[in-house]
């Protein structure tokens, strides 16, 4: 059935059936988190390398937990404290790691396309855990799983993605996936943070928070990515928060009572989300994190099936 790829690189290249296979597989694996013994032997004897060139808490940890719950051996590599800091190139480091015969390499890098380069270079399976401002497919998958568990379906849902769209790989992966699953997506933010021609991805654009969040089923707030900003895009954090920060008052005044508030983390409290909203009843932010482990288990299991390149 639904999965035959060696790698998971983007949501853009997947069709709706493949996306649903990933979400369904993750949904079935959720029960493992509730067991006394959180370990199944599916990936026994497989090696998963986390190759992280950018900081990460949630993604790296959840790939590590996912691999370990599946009985894989998980090795963490981060650029600081490695030969990358001695000047070794990305490709050379990757080839050296590949020489140690891992089965899956999970890669995060600040350059768009980094995962695809590895997929073309290395024989093992590659999972994109975020490449620059390009894509972050496992984040989109865990967002989708969270949405389906709360709303029961995808078709016809309205979603607002709010904030720094330009720098957001989370937004891009979600837009591609949500459009394929029949959802309506509105992106909203100050004009300097909305990429030109974003409508060509099939989304609506709004430049006012109050308009964007009206009548939607899901509000996905994005982090203001100060580390990727070269300056001058917003006048000040205070002004951004004043116009684009989601507060309880704004939520109550403009959004539906059954709206879901999502955030890929890490949250800048008091900037894009007020603490009462982040911790409030509409928020499913920690649920997203929990689902992240199931999603990454699902990805690892499905990709491991591909290792059978050897004839059965």
């Amino acid at each position, binding site marked *: *059935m*639904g*999965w*035959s790829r060696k790698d998971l690189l983007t949501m853009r290249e997947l069709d709706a059936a493949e996306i649903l296979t990933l979400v*369904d*597989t993750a*949904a*079935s*694996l959720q*029960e493992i988190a509730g*067991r*006394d*013994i959180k*370990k*199944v*032997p*599916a990936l026994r004897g497989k090696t998963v390398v986390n190759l992280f060139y950018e900081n990460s808490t949630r993604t790296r940890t959840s790939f590590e937990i996912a691999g370990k719950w*599946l009985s894989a051996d998980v090795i963490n590599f981060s650029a600081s404290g490695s030969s990358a800091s001695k000047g070794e190139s990305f490709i050379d480091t990757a080839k050296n790691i590949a020489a140690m015969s891992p089965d899956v390499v999970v890669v995060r890098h600040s350059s768009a396309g980094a995962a695809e380069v590895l997929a073309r270079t290395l024989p093992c399976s590659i999972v994109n855990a975020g490449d620059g401002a390009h894509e972050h497919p496992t984040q989109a998958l865990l967002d989708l799983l969270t949405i389906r568990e709360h709303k029961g379906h995808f078709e016809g849902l309205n979603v607002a993605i709010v904030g720094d769209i330009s720098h957001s790989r989370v937004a891009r992966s979600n837009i591609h996936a949500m459009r394929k699953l029949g959802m309506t997506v509105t992106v909203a933010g100050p004009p300097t943070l909305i990429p030109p021609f974003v409508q060509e991805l099939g989304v609506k654009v709004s430049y006012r928070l109050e308009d964007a969040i009206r009548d939607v089923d899901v509000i996905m707030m994005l982090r203001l990515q100060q580390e990727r900003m070269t300056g001058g895009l917003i006048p000040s954090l205070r002004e951004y928060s004043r116009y684009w920060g989601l507060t309880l008052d704004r939520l109550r005044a403009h959004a539906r009572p059954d709206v879901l508030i999502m955030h890929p983390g890490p949250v800048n409290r008091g900037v894009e989300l007020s603490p009462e909203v982040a911790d409030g009843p509409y928020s499913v932010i920690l649920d997203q994190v929990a689902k992240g482990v199931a999603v990454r288990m*699902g990805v690892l*299991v*499905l*990709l*491991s*099936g*591909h*290792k*059978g390149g*050897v*004839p*059965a």
Partner: protein
Amino acid sequence: MSSRPPRLREKAQVLDDVALDRALTRIAHEILEKNGGAKELAFVGLRTRGVTLAQRLAAKITAIDGTSVPVGTLDITLYRDDLDMRGAPVIRGTDIPFSIKNKTVVLVDDVLYTGRTIRAALDALIDLGRPGMIQLAILVDRGHRELPIRPDFIGKNLPTSKRESVAVRLREHDGEDRVVIEEPEEA
């Protein structure tokens, strides 16, 4: 990947709907007899048809004994020893909404063949807790065991050759209750 499996044609009918129902009724009685009732009993069916058979056995035990026996679903995909020979696995999940600790768990599957599925099921089950006892109920035992596994309750012993296969068809999935032997068409 492996080559496409050959098309199969029906060679013989082994059980019709009446015989299948009778076999399940007998198994239900045997389970009650062997365990001295249905207290502490739980059924765990193997996806997909084992679950349906487990539900039918539970209903029969309720009808005979008045006891309601919980039924769980086990997906053994993550425990297979041939995961990377089969292409991407299809995982539909385990759902056992009761504690199996100290229970007498009756594993239920439609066909017993090499025993490898049951080996995986035993591992999967024991990872969920420590049952007091595990027993095995099978609708059709077709022989050719590759592991030292033996069922406690058997609907029908059916000597087969390895090139044949046994298809258990159940109303809930296939629209009819029937067990047939199939063989490759070009034979």
